[in-house]
């Protein structure tokens, strides 16, 4: 057992876990944040994507001890109170989800993608960069639309500067 401490969604958390505990299990079971999902055991599906010190990672590929001392953002930490993150709002507006299981990982990947590109995205780039996330319900059509729309909205303030 090792004590693993980190900042999750701005809150300091700490729990004793086995050394082999994955970050995703730490978040889901030790901390009780079940928004981050597990869809596979080979790091292929992206249901578990969270941000670790600002970068998207698959939380099933990372040990909790590796993340110790870091700052983690999960899907629960995106909205500001009642105000949805633009990517969350766009997923809803464009029906970018059905069963919702892939959705947390999709949203976290999308936020990271938009941030890295400064909001300058086209369909081909979005499809290419969604490579690590599988959705079985939506056929991606509306997810792609949602990400492009959110990107254009997140780009605007920068363009106005």
């Amino acid at each position, binding site marked *: 057992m090792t004590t693993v401490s980190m900042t999750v969604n701005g809150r300091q958390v700490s729990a004793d876990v086995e050394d082999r505990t994955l970050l995703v299990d730490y978040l889901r079971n030790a901390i009780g944040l079940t928004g981050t999902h597990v869809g596979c055991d080979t790091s292929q599906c992206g249901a578990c994507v969270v941000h670790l010190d600002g970068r998207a990672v698959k939380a099933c590929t990372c040990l909790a001890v590796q993340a110790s001392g870091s700052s983690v953002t999960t899907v629960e930490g995106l909205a500001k109170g009642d105000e949805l993150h633009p990517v969350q709002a766009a997923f*809803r507006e464009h029906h970018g989800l059905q*069963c919702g299981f892939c959705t947390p990982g999709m949203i976290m990947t999308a936020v990271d993608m938009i941030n890295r590109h400064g909001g300058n995205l086209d369909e081909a780039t979005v499809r290419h960069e969604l490579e690590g996330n599988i959705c079985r319900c*939506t056929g991606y059509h509306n997810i792609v639309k949602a990400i492009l729309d959110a990107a254009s909205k997140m780009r605007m303030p920068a363009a106005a500067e």
Partner: protein
Amino acid sequence: MGMEGIGQRVVRKEDKRFITGKGKYTDDVKLQGMTHAHFVRSPHAHARIRSIDTAAAAAMPGVVAVLTGAELVGDRIGNLICGWMIHSKDGSPMKMGAYPAMAPETVRYVGQAVAVVVAETKNQARDAAEAVVVDYEELPAVTTVLDAIKEGAPQLHPEAPGNRVYEWSLGDKAATDAAFAGAAQVVSMDILNNRLVPNPMEPRSAVANYDAGDDQLTLWTTSQNPHVARLVLSAFYNIAPEHKLRVIAPDVGGGFGSKIYIYPEEIVCLWASRKANRPIKWTSDRTEAFLTDAHGRDHITKAEMAFDANHKILGLRVHTYANFGAYMSLFSSSVPTYLYATLLSGQYVIPAIYAEVDGVYTNTVPVDAYRGAGRPEATYVLERMMETAARQFGVDPAELRRKNFITSFPYQTPVIMTYDAGDYNASLDAALKAIDYAGFPARKAEAKARGKLRGIGLSCYIEACGIAPSKAVGSLGAGVGLWESAEVRVNPVGTVEVLTGSHSHGQGHETTFAQLVSERLGIGIDQVAIVHGDTDKVQFGMGTYGSRSGAVGMSAILKAMEKVETKAKKIAAHLMEAAEGDIVIEGGEFKVAGTDKKMPFALVALAAYTGHNLPDGMEPGLKEGAFYDPTNFTFPAGTYVCEAEIDPDTGKTTVVNFVAADDFGRMINPMIVEGQVHGGLAQGIGQALLEGTVYTDDGQLMTASYMDYAMPRADDLPSFDLHHTTTLCPGNPLGIKGCGEAGAIGSPPAVINAITDALGVRDIAMPATPARVWNAIHGRMAAE
């Protein structure tokens, strides 16, 4: 019609929790004192269990119990059932081998459970499972139907000689033979429909909790039909009587058919929870899902189609071998029979059809209904035949179809179904226009100039949704009725709770069902709560599959709504001293027609509950229930066109344009309908290009993870171009046909027809991987 009523693209109510990480899926359930189960599974496709030594495992840290198949059988836990009895053409009932939830003596597929370890933590259970020693005597295995029916093939079940479950037939053999005898031309093909793994992103999971105080069991499970689960667990498996078992299917992360069935793990967790007197959670990992979720498709079909000199179809003859895997799953027997052969008329006038279907056991994962269930297989056979016939005759594939379309309704096919309404020319026209069919030769030439091979492929599909009526399916061997139930409860403040027996695993019922109530009462959808998925709340229901929730489930809600409205009108008339017949409901108010007298719905609701001033003899309260049993299936249909481009250097196929023109009848929420089509198309295109299950000859599943089984990703698919034509379904009061499976049914033949067109070959096997396509190109070039 309000802003949130029928036909509006209302954004979904349920999304709020999903996009903020507040969804409640089974694996999110955490109970005080909860333990974790891990299954010991067979590494062999066929073996006898000589012994199981659990002593070392039982002594490991945290282990609460180690239980085997022998103990399960000893406790008289029943074998898994198949719920649809099929009779062979000689009249004999289908031949089934016993399917225990954990194998006590013989394992018949890789991944079959033989023991379970229950421990304080998941890792402890997993570690201890490694220490369970099973001594197997390996037996020869067989994985394909054609091998399984050979003389001398390994035998799976003594009850099923020759590995044959049934040899079934449908249609008129003599009339079909006569049609072929008089044919001017015949088209023949062997058609393979590849085995698929459904792969909902949420793995199956079960949490079982035995409460010794109340002698009550609760099961949280990833189910598409919790009431059927409770019924089957109670009636057949000796788990607990129905009133002592509560089944909750909370948020479910996709199903596509694979979560209809009651699986061994749920049975074992319930049984073990009672035995260990502890709550138990089991969650499948992805490889377990590949090894244990019911697979789909896996047909081999010999098909022949007879035409007259005018290219009119005279007859269709098919012989299909369906691979059932090692055991009969819950609805598996119905898939290649009543869900498949009954759709073999497609959109066409085919005067004579004769279908023979042999159901066969093999040492593979059990196969059952997967998105579309039987209809994709039928559509694939027909639409590959139509395309091949057109090319054989040198006629335009669209025109050959048009020439043979059914154009007057109702239409009685030779294979049971009576199509109630449709306009197949309308969807064909819409699709051809959208894809610019006439402009295709120019695009092909342009692609050729770039060194690419371009092809176009059509598919005109029909499906049957909302299986019905109960009386008819009962006469065909079904073990359940296929009605749906609903209860509409108006609260004293005028908000409404709708309890439904159908279940959402991504289809957005919380929104569409509320739209119906909004339409009728003129109240906002936020005033309406949809309750589903809990046997303690909803009395009974049949769940969601086969696109039945709209056509059947919403019709039940409508019936209950009408009863509520009738009573509410009586109350309103009494309160406003008007005639009941003069009351109209409009915009959330009860109005007296022709006057300015009105009262808000909420006040009528309150009056029903105060009971201070009701018509003499009326019971207080405002809640009504209804059971709705449809009179017929519904028949969505449409035309899909795929335009594909192939890189001859790599063999990679790119779908450059995909048009869908569907007739789903009335659409409650077009946005959600389109989403359903997108998802279905992705699965169908996945089947055509990427997805395929590969077994070694000795029964090892080579495609048991996302490293090996190619799931469609965003980059593999285009954006889709959707169109709708509408004929209302006359069979239900809302005119709904159903849309959930269409995409998966119609798209595989469209894609394969496009590829064979591009390559100029007669056939290519699914999935048409780059390697297969490259080989086809190579073979053709070598032949030239």
